[in-house]
């Protein structure tokens, strides 16, 4: 084409020249034409090859901004597009590969879809390889385009080269749509019967995919499965077991049919275990763990609800369970599968106990992954093998203290499942402790669980009330809405505990009125049993002395407090009203009620108006209406929002308003950040998670596997040593990130100069582990007092600091006393604690001022 064009240009020029020459055209014009002609030559005959894939990758990685990268990509895409338009066969493969790279970066690549099809249709292996890869990445079965592949795949399934057949099988098995599967199932079935193990194993998995897409086709593969298990080749064995598993799971008939394979499977498994070292399939001393696990899984399905099959596999299961090496993950993987199988089939009780004991051992394993699967499995079996699981109760309860959220959750669920009449006291202690210290996401579920367990197994009424109190006071804001009416009902029915209950609730109210469920239950109780409160009738504990006015003060306080929700206010107003028949200060109550009859809150207003009416017009009915509640029948619905009773008075219904989750974190208090030293002295923050530049970009070879080649185990590589400021948490340190709150943090000397010594002692603030509470102790060894002593501190930007008032501002001489002051530091990013302190005092008449850096904080104070 180019030469034609060239010659036509040349012809044109020639003609022009002739024509022009006859018209006496100047020389410059002829030279210009000649220049054009040369240009055409360059463009059409010496076209540069498209840039190589690795070259492109290298170029794109030099982009410094997203915009720069986008520009490079757009430029290359344009070049690729025009190359596609040119139907360039030579470089199509390269261009599609580049397109796939850009697609992985997130850029659109749909214009390459048809090109993939062309590559698949090519005769070159390289083209097919990239083409099929592209098809798997860019095409999805929702589009009709993929159907065009069907014919190519069909041809390639019958190709003379097994690697081409392999490509076709792989693609079909990965993304074949139901139509394609229907069309090609016959070919796959044929290949399933071949003696070429390379193809047979692939055909087996491809058949699995076909069956998943078109279950009706399962039947046609049945004949081919006849002697699949007699293969020696592990690849074929493995994929055959997968195929058989799929068929058995989908069809009860198939399951029945394949049950007869149990002896053969048992034999294969036995050979794997008993056979000597086989280097080809060995993983840490275990022969082909992948195959072992799949066989165990198939045995599970075959043995389920069938006594004979279960009997036939008993021995091998016991053998695997006792002989498998447990030091590495691979052994535990097999044990895990074995346990699942034992628990699912009709195994004898001895075997079941063995299985549960394995899980119990798992719970003690250092590897948290193992603990996780153990807890998951125990959760599944706790209903059926309750007693066996009970034996591991203490280990399970220990897992409540684990760091991993998923492990904690499972341990919590399992713990609740294990609570019974015998262990209720001990278990509840642990669970309440857990409730105190767990993350907010657990609190609601845990609280509900505690209430349920307490209701079922409470050893005494007193214990029950105490437990409820504990939950309300520690996790009160997380308690579910429906708990309030349930608790009220419970309290009402515990007649002999009324005095004790109301006293405890009253005391709790004095401490804290922020947790709405607690406040609501308390108000209700005070309304009901306020008379018992003021008469000091409590038997269970020392009765408190409280007057009617004090009680009314508290209830009125709830009405006006900003912390109270409208629902809570409703409760307190009603409680105040009820006290009019129990207390003598009726006038005060009348006054309060009349004030609220003009409240902006419609609900409150309505109540107040009605109560007012009670006082005025219906005073004769008042005592009857406000009488003590009788024992209530438990309503049938879960979480009743209205409490029914039989006296004709309608109790205020609890509307479904969500309680304001009041955050009790001290971080919300005023942050007295004493930034003494100005912005430029504050240390810049560096993220602990990601380095800003990947060290790998520098071309250093990072050994992905660490010492893998030596030990062959699951040793993860050491972390990348990236240049980061030294004070960031070292990921390689074996120190646990956060441990018990009870672990003591050693005190430290922060400052010692000129006779003034300042010591820091630490404690963790519960419930927020991000807060360190530091108490400073300042002592003075000189003979003169240090007066007007002021301690100030500054911390880097990521921290927040709060200084409480000092005990005094005179540090007595000769260590005769000390000044103490409490500092609270909020450290949400768990950065290394650093502080700058400024001390000012007067000593022997002259003012002294000093600045110091405190860097020697013990790691436990900030980790």
């Amino acid at each position: 084409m180019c030469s034609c064009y060239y010659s036509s240009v040349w012809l044109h020029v020639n003609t022009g020249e002739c024509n022009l020459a006859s018209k006496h055209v100047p020389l410059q014009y002829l030279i210009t034409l000649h220049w054009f002609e040369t240009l055409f030559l360059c463009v059409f005959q010496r076209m540069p090859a498209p840039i190589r894939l690795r070259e492109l990758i290298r170029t794109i990685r030099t982009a410094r901004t997203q915009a720069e990268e986008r520009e490079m990509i757009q430029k290359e895409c344009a070049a690729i597009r025009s190359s596609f338009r040119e139907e360039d066969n030579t470089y199509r493969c390269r261009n599609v590969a580049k397109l796939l790279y850009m697609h992985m970066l997130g850029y659109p690549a749909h214009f390459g879809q048809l090109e993939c099809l062309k590559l698949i249709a090519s005769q070159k292996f390289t083209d097919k390889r990239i083409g099929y890869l592209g098809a798997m990445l860019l095409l999805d079965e929702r589009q009709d385009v993929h159907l065009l592949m069907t014919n190519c795949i069909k041809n390639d399934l019958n190709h003379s080269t097994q690697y081409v057949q392999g490509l076709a099988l792989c693609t079909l098995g990965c993304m074949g749509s139901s139509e394609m599967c229907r069309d090609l199932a016959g070919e796959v079935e044929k290949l399933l019967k071949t003696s070429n193990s390379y193809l047979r194993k692939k055909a087996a998995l491809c058949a699995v995919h076909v069956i998943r897409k078109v279950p009706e086709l399962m039947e046609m593969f049945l004949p081919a499965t006849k002697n699949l298990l007699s293969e020696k080749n592990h690849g074929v064995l493995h994929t055959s077991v997968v195929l058989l598993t799929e068929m058995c799971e989908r069809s009860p008939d198939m399951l029945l049919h394949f049950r007869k394979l149990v002896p053969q499977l048992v034999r294969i498994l036995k050979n794997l275990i008993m056979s000597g070292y086989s280097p080809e399939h060995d993983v840490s001393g275990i022969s082909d763990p992948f195959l072992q696990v799949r066989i165990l899984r198939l045995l599970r399905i075959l043995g389920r609800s069938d006594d004979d099959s279960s009997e036939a596999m008993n021995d091998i299961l016991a053998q695997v369970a006792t002989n498998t090496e447990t030091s590495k993950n691979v052994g535990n993987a097999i044990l895990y599968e074995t346990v699942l199988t034992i628990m699912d089939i009709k195994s004898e009780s001895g075997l079941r106990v063995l299985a549960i004991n394995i899980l119990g051992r798992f719970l003690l394993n250092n590897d948290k992954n193992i603990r996780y699967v153990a807890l998951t499995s125990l959760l599944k079996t706790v209903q059926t093998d309750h007693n066996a699981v009970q034996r591991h109760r203490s280990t399970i309860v220990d897992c409540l203290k684990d760091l991993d959220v998923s492990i904690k959750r499972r341990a919590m669920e399992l713990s609740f499942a294990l609570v019974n009449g015998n262990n209720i006291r001990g278990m509840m202690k642990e669970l309440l402790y857990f409730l105190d210290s767990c993350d907010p996401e657990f609190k609601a579920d845990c609280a509900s669980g505690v209430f349920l367990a307490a209701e079922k197994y409470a050893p005494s009424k007193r214990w029950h009330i105490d437990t409820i109190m504990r939950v309300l006071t520690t996790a009160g804001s997380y308690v579910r809405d429906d708990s309030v009416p349930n608790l009220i009902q419970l309290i009402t029915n515990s007649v002999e505990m009324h005095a004790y209950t109301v006293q405890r609730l009253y005391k709790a109210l004095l401490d804290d009125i922020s947790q709405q469920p607690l406040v609501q239950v308390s108000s209700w109780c005070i309304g009901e049993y306020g008379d018992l409160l003021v008469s000091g009738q409590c038997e269970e504990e020392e009765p408190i002395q409280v007057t009617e006015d004090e009680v009314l003060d508290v209830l009125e306080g709830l009405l006006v407090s900003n912390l109270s929700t409208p629902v809570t206010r409703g409760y307190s107003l009603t409680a105040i009203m009820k006290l009019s028949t129990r207390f003598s200060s009726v006038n005060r109550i009348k006054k309060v009620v009349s004030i609220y009859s003009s409240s902006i809150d419609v609900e409150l207003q309505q109540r107040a108006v009605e109560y007012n009416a009670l006082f005025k017009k219906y005073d004769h009915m008042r005592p009857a209406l406000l009488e003590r509640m009788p024992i209530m029948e438990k309503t049938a619905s879960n979480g009743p929002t209205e409490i029914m009773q039989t006296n004709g008075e309608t109790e205020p219904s609890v509307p479904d308003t969500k309680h304001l989750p009041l955050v009790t974190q001290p971080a919300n208090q005023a942050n007295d950040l004493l930034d003494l030293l100005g912005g430029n002295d504050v240390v810049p923050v560096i993220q602990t998670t990601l380095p800003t530049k990947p060290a790998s970009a520098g071309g250093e070879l990072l050994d992905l596997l660490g010492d893998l080649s030596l030990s062959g185990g699951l040793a993860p590589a050491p972390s990348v040593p990236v240049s980061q400021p030294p004070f960031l948490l070292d990921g390689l340190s074996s120190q646990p990130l956060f441990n018990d709150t009870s672990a003591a943090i050693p005190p430290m000397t922060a400052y010692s100069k000129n006779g003034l010594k300042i010591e820091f002692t630490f404690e963790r603030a519960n419930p927020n582990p991000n807060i360190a509470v530091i108490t400073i102790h300042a002592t003075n060894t000189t003979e003169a007092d240090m007066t007007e002593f002021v301690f100030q501190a500054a911390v880097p930007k990521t921290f927040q600091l709060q200084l409480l008032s000092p005990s005094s501002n005179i540090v007595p001489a000769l260590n005769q006393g000390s000044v103490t002051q409490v500092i609270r530091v909020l450290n949400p990013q768990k950065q290394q604690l650093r502080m700058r302190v400024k001390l000012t005092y007067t000593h022997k008449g002259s003012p002294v001022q000093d600045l110091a850096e405190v860097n020697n904080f013990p790691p436990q104070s900030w980790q």
Partner: protein
Amino acid sequence: MQFMLLFSRQGKLRLQKWYVPLSDKERKKISRDLVQTILARKPKMCSFLEWRDLKIVYKRYASLYFCCAVEDQDNELITLEIIHRYVELLDKYFGSVCELDIIFNFEKAYFILDEFLLGGEAQETSKKNVLKAIEQADLLQECTFPV
């Protein structure tokens, strides 16, 4: 297995193999969300998590995260072994593999994966056989540097 993702600590995808039919948009969303979730996890946490309705198994090797989504009935511990086997294969093929190898030779990483897993299940449990197959297939290529 439903899918396998390889991504760096900055959240850049290095390989994505999907065994379930999902549109490009859906895949992007899942990748993005899952990568964020995993990167937010602390190093001492479990290798397993429940995410949406999937079981996720992940492990970090140097600067790369290998993440698989498996079905309910799948054994998580053996999935860790599958991931490890894949890393071993890459290591044998590239010789002390590192992230850069996978970045610059991503198509080869896919070829190796496709010789090890098919439709989400292991097709060959012998390391030697997988590597031999790749070697033979590489020899079939019409030129040494086709791309």
